[in-house]
């Protein structure tokens, strides 16, 4: 199990190597950010569809969508990625690694986001819906002018967490060959037989992006709540 511990480890960090691979890693970081952004955008929209589908009042649709959401949330993303990438060719459809990756991540996080949306919508007091009816507002206006602005502030923390989460999950795309950050690091590692610098730098790059983002998101949530007049 635990094979060894040495007092003077074989730790020999080579700065020259680190700087040599930095450009390639930074370039891959851009790809990672692009993947995270695209996946999140897809998830935002499909998640809303999942959430609204559960509010139609038609039991069959509600139950089916509910089960789909539960299934996606309860199974590993990496297996879903493999599934979508490999299943296509089995039935004649060829999906590129990028496309399958985006579909998999988009669906996975859509399931998470739909729960966040649902909680937000449920938190709006019933009296608001009744006031809209009493004023004879149409359903569209009710949703867009009254309900969603009130459902948004409580939903933002969850949405922010999942933005950071998607970013951290992009390394899984490397298993189907998407050239994001982890993939680049592994390729460099196996080419030069040095994993120390690549993997350490990847870790640091992730921290450098995710920590400030998480902090910035918390500030943004405060700002939105104030801007919508929900705070004194």
């Amino acid at each position, binding site marked *: 199990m635990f094979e*060894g*511990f040495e007092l003077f480890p*074989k730790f020999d960090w080579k700065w020259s190597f680190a700087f040599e691979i930095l450009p390639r890693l930074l370039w891959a970081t851009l790809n990672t950010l692009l993947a995270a952004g695209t996946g999140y955008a897809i998830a935002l929209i499909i998640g809303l569809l999942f959430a609204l589908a559960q509010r139609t009042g038609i039991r069959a649709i509600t139950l089916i969508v509910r089960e789909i959401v539960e299934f996606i949330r*309860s199974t590993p993303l990496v297996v879903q990625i*493999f*599934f979508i990438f490999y299943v296509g060719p089995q039935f004649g459809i060829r999906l590129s690694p990028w496309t399958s990756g985006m579909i998999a991540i988009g669906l996975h996080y859509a399931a998470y986001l739909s729960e966040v949306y649902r909680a937000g919508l449920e938190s709006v007091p019933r009296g608001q819906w009744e006031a809209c009816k009493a004023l004879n507002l149409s359903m569209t206006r009710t949703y867009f002018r009254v309900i969603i602005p009130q459902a948004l502030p409580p939903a933002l923390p969850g949405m922010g967490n999942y933005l950071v989460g998607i970013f951290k999950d992009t*390394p*899984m795309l490397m298993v189907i060959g998407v050239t994001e950050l982890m993939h680049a690091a592994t390729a460099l590692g196996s080419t030069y037989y040095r994993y120390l610098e690549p993997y350490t730098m990847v*870790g640091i790059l992730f921290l450098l992006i995710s920590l400030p983002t998480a902090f910035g998101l918390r500030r943004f949530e405060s700002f939105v709540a104030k801007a919508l007049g929900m705070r004194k």
Partner: protein
Amino acid sequence: MQHYLEYLQAYGGRFVDGTLVTIQQTLLAALLAIFVAALFGMMRLSEKWLIRGTSIVYIEFFRGTSLLVQLYWIFFVLPLLGVTFDKFTAGFVAVGLNLGAYGAELVRGSIEAVPKGQYEACHALNMSYYKRMRRIILPQALLLMLPPWGNLLIELLKGTALVSLISVTDLMFEAKQINGTTYLSAESFGTALIIYYLMARVVVSPGMRAFERYWGKKMGRI
């Protein structure tokens, strides 16, 4: 359907083997995560900045980087610093440490959520810190944290799938292998997905709910 049944007959055994490894990984990671969460969760509440700071660093580090990166780092890079784990151990250690960080926040949040009145009552009864925590505060905190811990355990289960990437022969590893030889991707990965789903929905969630009911009764809930 007939075709699928034949498939299961041929490969069912390997799926079972893989599932057993996944279960082992999950249980070991869970034990580690619970220990880490309890330790760092309580450290987070300490008044001494050194203790509190250490736990904040731990929590932010493991929550801010992705599990896959941590896994690879523990398996490939730690040996260079003198700490070598075999792949099975590296697997559940990474998952346990990572999800333990999330668990630490749950522990902290639940302890903070216990009503202040409870502390005041303990103070009035002149209880020591340890008595108070062990007999009054922590049991109540445990009840509060059980629902989100249920979700965390499912995340843990899902996280173990990544250990297949360092060649631990778990459920996903087997599915990948079988897919590699048969090219029956829908059956291979589909079966794996179904097994994960069943473990989450039929074992973990009901199990947690049952424990919640049991503990709730102990805490006096009707």
